[in-house]
């Protein structure tokens, strides 16, 4: 898995590439929690993730909770088919704010829990 972190439209944009499993989920969690701690609005680009398991999902859930506590925004962008499948299996597609396109992030993002898909 590759993680790149950039700024996009005032969001901290975290781009994930490859497989997200137990071997790298702690690196993802660390990155997400750091951005959350800095009270950034976060968008996670999941378009190039080939596989994600529960350990990766757990990191996303934790960051989502942190953002909610902060009152910041946490958005999942363009999840690939495998990611969307696992999100649905876990019924988390109803919890996360999910947007179809990575760019541009809407100036006024949807409220948490409202999927734009």
């Amino acid at each position, binding site marked *: 898995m590759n993680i790149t972190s950039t700024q996009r439209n005032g969001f901290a944009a975290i781009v994930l590439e490859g*497989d997200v*499993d*137990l*071997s*790298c989920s702690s690196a993802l969690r660390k990155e997400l929690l750091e951005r959350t701690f800095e009270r950034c609005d976060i968008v996670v680009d999941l378009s190039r993730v080939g*596989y994600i*398991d*529960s*350990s990766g*999902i*757990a*990191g996303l*859930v*934790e960051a*989502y*909770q942190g953002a909610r506590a902060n009152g910041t925004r946490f958005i999942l962008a363009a999840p690939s088919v*495998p990611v969307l*499948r*696992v999100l649905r*299996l*876990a*019924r*988390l597609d109803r*919890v996360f704010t999910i947007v179809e396109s990575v760019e541009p992030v809407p100036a006024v993002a949807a409220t948490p829990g409202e999927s734009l898909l």
Partner: protein
Amino acid sequence: MLPPDPSGAAGDGPSRHLDLIAEMMAAFARSQDVEATLRLGLVRAVERLEAEAGSLFLLEPDGSLRCRASVGPVDVTGLRLAPGTGIVWRTVEANCPQRVGDTGRDPDFAPTIDDATGFITRSILCAPVAAGPERLGAIELFNKRGGHPFSDADLGLLQALTASAALAMINARLLASLAEQEMMQRDLELAAEIQRAMLPPLQGEDSPVHGVNLPARGVSGDFYEIVPLPDGRIAFAIGDVAGKGMKAALLMARTASLFRCLVKREDGPGRVLAAIESELHETRLAGTFVTMVAGLLDVDTGRVVLANAGHEPPVLYAKGRFVEIEGGMPPLGIDPRLFADGVPETVVDLDGGALYLFTDGLTEARGVVGGVMLGAAGVLGLLDAFTAMSAAERLQTVLHALGGAVTLRDDVTLMVVEDRTRPPSSAVQRLFPARPEVLAEIRATVAAALAGIGGGAEVVEACVLATDEACQNIIRHAYKGGEGDIVLHVSREDDSVVIRLMDFAPPVDPSKIVSRPLDDVRPGGLGTHLMRSVMDTVGFRPPPMGIGNLLEMVKRIESP
């Protein structure tokens, strides 16, 4: 009993010698050469107690006392005293200090030394050098200057000195014996290393014969050999030398090298064993013997010729059944007359299966829980669980399974001779280290196995996800992040894909593995829910031989 102190001096306690006692204790504590310090102590004691002369006697290995240092007008260093001679012997034998005010009135006083040297002994103060009951020698002082006898305080000082001397000597001896033990241990470790280096190298995956050895500790009496012959057949042997330590190790080395040499010369394993017996008889290693099976595999026909000298019977696994190959001779190295008519051979048709050979270290391994012997049945039960694995991996897996689950009292050696004429199994079974980094490889293995077995993209996706989640649970919860193994099994049974994951961790309580309520949004606990969502059934099954945990997940290929 000591005679009363004739000086009767008040305030003359040993406390006034505290400076000397402290000096000598410090000297003994940092001494590299205890005897030199003892000599210094003797000189100091003679000075401080105003004696005319003094001697240090130490017990020799032959039981005599020898003078190791001497102060005074006459040097008696090197003098030997046979047991029973004089006041010094009385001190050592009684292990109790002696004070003689007037030698003329003590019947035990031996004037021989005075006679030989011209020295006139009037009074004696002698204290044993001893640590508890262990006697090491004595320090003897002669003639207090000024004509007085030695006092209680004098005795107190001498006893304080001999006590620290004794401690220093015992310490030095312990250190020396420890160093010797360490050297012996290093020798033994080196011997064990050399021995392991003599075992055959790991065979390639395509070899039909494999062996593994797990040494219990120290040098081993087990061995195995794999020798490919020029005509394409493969000779092999497994053996166990009775007895322990260096002697058994040397006999093992000799027997193994005899096998390697003779197998190229003699025709058939029966003749090889008879030839080894006759060579061993020449070397006469009384008190030890060797149990051994020698065999020859014809790779093209899948037939094995076996000869057994007192070893555990090899076991054939074919068509789902285990059969012991009985018969054979007594062990090698007992009586060559037993082998006068040679060793009978048995021909075994592997029949698409495999032949297993092992040493009793394996069958006598005891379970950590309950302490029950694994037995041949237990070993076979384990082998049976891993039949879809490659032969080399199967042996490793059995050893890994045993590693966590049994206490080894002896070396374990296990061999397999496999029929390469058999059709390969359609099931996939592989051993992986339980680490997050191999999860990608495990997922790829499941996907590849399903490509061979059948099942659409949805089945593959489901099985890959469920296997990954189950492996995560094993890594995180069964092994708790520590070292371990995962056995992955993927097969097709009727219209279903069956995935079995086995670990060798302590048993997991399935009731504690619960699916998280989905309304409760929080990290963790998701994995089990995902597994149950994508597979048709997920459940723990009794693991082979009760070792570790076995999770079975089934996915139907054709939806009803």
